């Protein structure tokens, strides 16, 4: 069985935010919820790098471990999803996630948290595949159509890779080899020192 993962090539990411926009548009995400974001380290300085971050679909997900109502489940492909019908909006998964993937709509009750929303690897949720209920709650289900997540498909420099872990690591390894041994030949954000 495949083990689905994301990998963002920091040397290619140009911070265009196409992945962010594609995700928001395709999954019809409400205002205030950010499934994917691009984080830039050392912005404006030499050695600036950007990474596109969303749910990393961890094999031993801390969000699933800490959830007090156990609303998370992992599909056969290794994609970590959750059931919004069970979620109580407590926010613990947001505290536990190293990447800050879980998001909460701001329009709900006193604790200002509605049901949690996060990147689903474009694999929908527990509802029936490609039903309108599933789209309303979880967004597009591309995996059931045999496609890959839209963020990776829309990446302008193919920095963001999504798919089976073996395939991705293979692609990345080939890139490293092709980039050669000299620092002069490194990707877009190359520089002599750092």
């Amino acid at each position, binding site marked *: 069985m495949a083990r689905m993962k994301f990998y963002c090539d*920091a*040397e290619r990411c140009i*911070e265009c*935010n196409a992945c*962010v926009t594609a995700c928001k548009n395709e999954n019809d995400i409400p205002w*205030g919820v*950010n499934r994917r*974001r*691009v*984080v*830039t*380290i*050392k*912005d404006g300085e030499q*050695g600036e*790098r950007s*990474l596109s*971050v969303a749910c990393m679909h961890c094999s031993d997900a*801390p969000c699933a*471990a*800490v*959830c*007090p*109502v*156990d*609303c998370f489940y992992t599909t056969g492909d290794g994609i970590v999803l959750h*059931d919004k*019908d*069970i*979620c*109580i*909006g*407590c*926010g*613990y998964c*947001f*505290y*536990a*996630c*190293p*990447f*800050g993937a879980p*998001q909460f709509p*701001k329009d709900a*009750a*006193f*604790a*200002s*948290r509605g049901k949690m929303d996060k990147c689903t690897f474009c694999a929908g949720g527990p509802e029936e595949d490609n039903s309108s209920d599933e789209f309303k709650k979880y967004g597009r289900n591309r995996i059931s159509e045999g496609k890959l997540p839209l963020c990776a498909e829309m990446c302008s420099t193919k920095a963001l890779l999504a798919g089976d872990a073996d395939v991705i690591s293979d692609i990345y390894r080939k890139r490293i080899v092709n980039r*050669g*041994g*000299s*620092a002069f030949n*490194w990707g877009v*954000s*190359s*520089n*002599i*020192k*750092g």
Partner: protein
Amino acid sequence: MRIQTLLLLFCLVLPQLSSAAGPPKSQDSPQGVSSINPGADLWREVRQRDGEILEGISQVKSVDSGFLINARGDEWARFRITKLSSYGGIAIAAIFVIVTLLYVVRGKIPIEGGLSGRMVRRFTDYERIVHWTLAIVFLFLAITGLILLLGKSLLLPILGKEVFSLFASASKEGHNLFGPLFLVSLIMMFLSFARRNIYENGDLTWLLKGGGLIGKGHVSGGFFNMGEKTWYWMVILIGFVIAISGLILVSPFFGQGRWIMELSHVVHTIGALILMTVSVGHMYLGSIGSEGALEGMKSGYVDINWADAHHDRWGKVCHDENLIVSAEDYARLQGRKPGDTGELATEQGK
């Protein structure tokens, strides 16, 4: 001519030689190229958990959106699951066991000479209202809080995910709404009882004698004994910490980072567990553990024998200032027919 050709050939070959030797190693590169991967130093810095966590920026502006990795989150999650839930559950179970054992071994602590039926006023209406308001709010918060902390391990296997999530959602909303009520009740309790709970001479003696709980023997106490005062200050101080951390947790719209939420959560839970365990002891001693104790919080009056046995310095004041109410008068005050003194007076005490 030959030397020039050789020199030319040499110059052409030289760069090929150097690149054929492979990628320049960091130690022996004369030009100062730092490493193979130009980002290696940066990522090493990002991965340092103990050092300064490198915070980036993001075009997406939300809480902590600039943080690439928050490693403390996983630490907090593991702490909550492995230590907080399990030790907390054990503590709650343990106090019930201890209290049961205490009752089985020691039984209801009687008053020497029994109850007389002659009463003295201890708490006003308002003071009792404050106490029971705090008690009801606290019990509700305790039960809903325990469902959130322990429900996944104890209730979910029995009820199933759908039904349990109903309870959990109800508990979370109820807990969040009643939280500020706890703060208000706490302030009311502080204002009502603070003066009488200030430690004074004689409290240390009370503590050293074990409060009379161990063995027999008369221990002197004021209006409140040292045990009650300590419990009072625990409720006020730990209660305030719980309330403040709870307010932080329940209002995420001020943009608090995750570390402050995690810290508040830990402080909140540990404080609550401490208060819950000691409150079981308080509830036991105030009701079935000690003869004549509950009456004070129900009607506001306590038996004079009870006052002399447990709070003799205050009892003496009641004797001196003639504040004692006879059994008949007390029955009348409580709306009972004269002569019907209820179950308060015992044969020996009259």
